[in-house]
């Protein structure tokens, strides 16, 4: 079985994530690291490959050329290959542009299963998989916390606002996994040493079907409203009433 895992290289949390006021885009000039949420689908892909005894795990990403360094973590964990779509024409791509580029690369890979993490660590739309599945014209199951793959179909269990769904779909399919699905392994020293030697392909936008015009724009940026003046009161017997008034003002009661 061939599994493609879509991952994102995001600015390292330690060095901070912020938007560059001039480009109005996330500042990616600092160190990039694989989004913490994306180690879960990598782990799941490796487990599926190990359980079946054969197959291939390919990590697919879109980002600046430097993102390849971040993808090496997935290779160090055990993924076989990395594909990075990198093109200045894709800078600032929104959901549409990202979905088109990834779907283009995924079509070429022809994987049986495409995995995503449950969200990115920076953009946070938590819906890219559905756009990619639409482009691939494949079934999609999101927020999966238990995944079984059985020959030609998969079964995923997931939590929604209302309870637990169990959904079955034939392969090929697109699945987004929740972070409760597994505990990602740490790369071994041998894995880290071997990662650099694994195939790492860079693709331009033209290689994966061209660039799609964005459907969204960023008009302006502003600081968030200041956290309301913190109030601190002494309980004089009316503390409970004051809390309820506050909760009512904030529409919690």
């Amino acid at each position, binding site marked *: 079985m061939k599994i493609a895992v879509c991952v994102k290289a995001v600015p390292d949390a330690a060095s901070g994530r912020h938007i560059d006021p001039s480009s109005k885009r996330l500042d990616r000039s600092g160190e990039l690291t694989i989004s913490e949420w994306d180690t879960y689908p990598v782990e799941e892909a490796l487990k599926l490959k190990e359980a079946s005894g054969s197959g291939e795990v390919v990590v697919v990403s879109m980002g600046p050329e430097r993102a390849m360094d971040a993808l090496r973590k997935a290779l160090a964990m055990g993924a076989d290959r990395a594909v990075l779509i990198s093109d200045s024409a894709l800078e600032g791509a929104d959901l549409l542009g990202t979905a088109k580029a990834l779907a283009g690369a995924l079509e070429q890979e022809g994987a049986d299963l495409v995995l995503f993490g449950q969200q990115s660590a920076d953009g946070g739309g938590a819906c890219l998989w559905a756009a990619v*599945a639409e482009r691939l014209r494949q079934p999609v199951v999101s927020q999966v916390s238990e995944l079984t793959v059985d020959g030609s179909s998969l079964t995923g269990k997931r939590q929604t606002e209302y309870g637990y769904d169990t959904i079955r779909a034939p392969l090929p399919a697109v699945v987004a996994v929740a972070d409760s699905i597994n505990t990602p392994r740490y790369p071994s020293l041998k894995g880290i040493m071997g990662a650099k030697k694994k195939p790492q392909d860079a693709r331009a936008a033209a290689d994966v079907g061209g660039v799609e015009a964005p459907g969204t724009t960023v008009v302006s940026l502003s600081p968030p409203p200041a956290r309301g003046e913190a109030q601190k009161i002494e309980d004089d017997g009316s503390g409970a*009433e004051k809390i309820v008034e506050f909760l009512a003002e904030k529409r919690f009661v």
Partner: protein
Amino acid sequence: MAKTLVFLEHHEGSIAKGSLGVLAKAAQIGGDVAAVLIGADVRGLAEGAGAFGAGTVWVADDASLAAPLPQPRVDVLAKLVADEGFDTVLFAQSVLAADVAAGLSARLDAGLNWGLVDFDGETGKAPQLQDTVVVDVGWSSPVKLGIFRAGALDAVESGGSAEVKDAAVELEDFSTQAEMVEQAHAEQQGPSIEDADVIVAGGRGLGEPEKFALAEELAQALGGAVAATRAVVDAGWYPYSAQVGQTGKTVSPKLYVALGISGAIQHKVGMQGSSVIVAINKDPNAPIFEFSDLGVVGDLHEIVPKLTELVRARKG
């Protein structure tokens, strides 16, 4: 004139409040506002949406749409948008709505902005990066798609009535491949702390393990979940699964009520993303007051039972 379509999510015979909030918002902006209900046996819900501002409610009522799966909904919406010429389609955030909206975005080449807390018909406001920046977002595509943040809008009734019309149900082959095998309802003990909108957390200030009942009762009244600090989990007062903090879970509910919690950094990092923080602690110098929206210095054993009563009374 803008033609807006609002996706109404429903569960067990009622329309989700969040969807009605988005509908009320669309009606407030003005133009031609319609809503769409997609499912099986949902026709009866349609008229009720008129009161929240829908002039027309489109209904796709078909057994093939019974399971809350996204892809058949994309098919129905895409056809409706094309046939009726809607230029804006709005959603309230949910697991289902995000997948529907993104699929529709790719189908229609329509830009999708998410996390909206406001929208004026042309631009929206979306706080990003853990609310450290507010982005004014716009659209460059002919059809605008937007997902509002959960709980961002009030479902305000405007008292109108809706014309109910049938929407065509023509499903793509790939859209019907995923099938719902089973739907199990979550236990009715309230949400888990990672999903909860409201969390009541207890610390050592509760005094003894039995006093966690105070936190549980308040949480129940507020419709929330109970969390605990590492100190009390370590002491065996409450299970590890409820622990919030550096070595426990990281939560970001809309409301976090801290009972007898000092606010050590180990705890703070697990809950500082909460939208509104209320703290009750008898120590006026407790660090928790530095990052609480409302801090009450007092005896929680006096305040909390009263507070629970008042919340119950308010919620009816």
